[in-house]
């Protein structure tokens, strides 16, 4: 009898405990919103592939956390800040979304970070690159996960100067992103002992870059830095080859994703230096995951998509470890736990929200060296996280400087 009683009590206790644990997940569901460019210029860099990456992370985690289901929703922000902010409000207020992730293009990232802070929910930026995200506009509910313009400049700029490319001319997209990329890279180039001979700013978006390339050619600089992105970069590379500017002068792509290289083809892109925080064929772990991704998406993952996967797992693990989806506690856990997976080794999320991890300098292979589709990069060197990203002491984030 006593035995039975004890079992009964234990059962009650277990039930009560389980109920207490479940109460820690708001609305009995953990909902992740992937807010990205599903149909515009960045749809290949992030887009549907990012949605898939987040879904894969949820599947690999088991689909449930603390006994509650995990749901993924997605929407197109069309690269417009106001649309992104409205969607974020709708998701947080009405649909019980706990985390908004991806946020490609800086204007949408900054807008959603602000809404998330106001609603006390979490935002993770994987797609956008501006250093403002963890400086002037930093929030304590945000993580900047994958890359920023500083790390791109540091990787490519320093390495190219070291390899003898000590005179630079910039081809810059004439808007905030291009200007900041040019500025960041100029600083790195000068600090490494190189010299900037000049720059030309082209209207965004452009089509024909040959006039600007001829100017770059006339400057006599050894390196032409491409401070632009997407099809602008692709067309610059293609036309530089067409006009015989490469290989006499070298190109340095300051923001190039593997999908850009895939589009341009190795014939025009060969020998180009590229900095990325992820490449599918870097080691066994990255290969394993990327092959699974490729089977479903028919394209290899970009760094933004891989970052989305890694960040989602890190977030879910933090909920599990914290025993709650409470924003402050999950953020605290995410900062306290180093990231160790196929994407980052010993990655650390700082107080300003910046995820500091190694990035890699690659050189695009020659067509003859590429053995299969998507076999595009040689690894030139690993740039340690502390070197790639700006030190905390230089941060202009109010959370750090106060």
């Amino acid at each position, binding site marked *: 009898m006593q035995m039975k009683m004890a079992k009964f009590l234990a059962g009650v206790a277990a039930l009560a405990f389980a109920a207490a644990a479940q109460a820690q997940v708001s609305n009995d569901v953990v909902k992740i919103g992937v807010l990205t460019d599903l*149909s*515009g210029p960045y749809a290949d860099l992030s887009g549907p592939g990012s949605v898939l990456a987040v879904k894969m992370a949820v599947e690999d985690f088991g689909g449930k956390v603390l006994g509650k289901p995990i749901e993924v929703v997605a929407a197109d922000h069309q690269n417009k800040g106001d649309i992104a902010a409205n969607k974020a409000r709708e998701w947080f207020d009405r649909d019980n979304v706990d985390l908004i992730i991806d946020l490609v293009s800086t204007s949408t990232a900054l807008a959603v970070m602000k809404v998330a802070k106001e609603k006390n929910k979490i935002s993770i930026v994987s797609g956008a690159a501006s250093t403002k995200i963890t400086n002037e506009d930093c929030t304590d509910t945000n993580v900047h996960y994958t890359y920023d313009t500083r790390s791109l400049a540091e990787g490519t700029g320093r390495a190219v100067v070291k390899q003898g490319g000590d005179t630079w001319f910039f081809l810059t997209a004439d808007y905030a992103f291009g200007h900041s990329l040019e500025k960041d890279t100029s600083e790195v180039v000068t600090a490494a002992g190189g010299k900037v001979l000049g720059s030309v700013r082209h*209207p965004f*978006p452009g089509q*024909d870059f040959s*006039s600007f390339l001829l100017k770059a050619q006339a400057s006599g600089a050894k390196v032409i830095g491409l401070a632009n992105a997407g*099809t602008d970069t692709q*067309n610059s590379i293609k036309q530089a080859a067409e006009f*015989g500017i490469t290989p006499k002068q070298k190109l340095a792509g300051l923001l190039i994703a593997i999908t850009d290289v895939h589009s*341009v083809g190795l014939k025009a892109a060969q020998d180009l230096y590229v900095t990325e925080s992820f490449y599918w064929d870097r080691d066994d772990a990255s290969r394993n995951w990327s092959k699974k991704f490729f089977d479903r998406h028919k394209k290899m993952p970009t760094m933004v998509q891989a970052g989305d996967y890694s960040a989602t797992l890190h977030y879910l693990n933090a909920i599990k470890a914290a025993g709650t989806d409470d924003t402050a506690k999950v953020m605290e856990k995410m900062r306290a736990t180093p990231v160790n997976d196929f994407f980052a080794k010993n990655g650390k999320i700082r107080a300003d929200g910046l995820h500091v991890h190694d990035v890699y300098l690659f050189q695009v292979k020659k067509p003859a060296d590429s053995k299969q589709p998507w076999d595009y990069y040689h690894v030139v060197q690993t740039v340690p996280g502390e070197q790639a990203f700006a030190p905390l002491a230089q941060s202009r984030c109010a959370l750090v400087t106060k």
Partner: protein
Amino acid sequence: MIEIFGVPLQGLFGQLLVGLINGSFYAVLSLGLAIIFGLLNIINFTHGAQYMMGAFFAWIGLTKFGLSYWAALVVSPLLVGAIGMAIERTMLRRLYHLDHLYGLLLTFGLALIIEGFFFNEYGSSGQSYDVPDALSGGTNLGFVFLPNYRAWVVVASIAMCLVSWFLIERTRLGAYLRAGTENPKLLQSFGVNVPLLVTLTYGYGVALAAFAGVLAAPVFQASPDMGSKLIIVVFAVVVIGGMGSIMGSIVTGLGLGLIEGLTKVYFPEFSATVIFLIMVIVLLVRPAGLFGRVR
């Protein structure tokens, strides 16, 4: 070395040549628009999407069916022209008696749908199309390295413009066409099948856009938004040249290419805007455009 406002003369020649190349794209595209506007009174906002389709059909032909560049130069405009004629027969035809705005809205909507379809199918990164072997490499002209393919673009565009001009201004078919522009009812009463003439004209204008698209494929990445980047400029060219004027659009296209090229040398940030500034001035001074007649 001789310098003009701080730019070496040799460099300037190179830049002018590049301007001429871009001008030839403007010329072929604005010619198609002008022909369509002249006879149909339709402002064909689908033109950019049809230019993009031309480039994409060439790329699809090469990668899926092994169709050579030279074959694509013929097949792609024919296909896009046929699709254009189907659009004219089923949709545009119903709008001729209405205000210009309706045609503009319909063609703009169609452009968005077509671009959306290609975004969805092929993604946002462009597709690469290699320069055909016969035209690869380049010639060093002393003042600039001219890629052979770019030289071909200028030759092919100007030839196509001249052929079109000859067709319209010097042949019997062209005479019907011009008569149809002036007074379609009277022409019909002479037993000419005007609706068929209109369909063929639209098809021809659209095929010109696709022809420019195939020419552009090896120069620019074939991407779904390549047309929308270009189309606004081309509209400005047509307005400056004079709506519906054949020679006007050809000459203006080439001329504005040169002016844009010069702007890229002296004031690059302004190069996307200069054409619109010229448009404003021309509209103030000559509202019908440089070569246009007041109707």
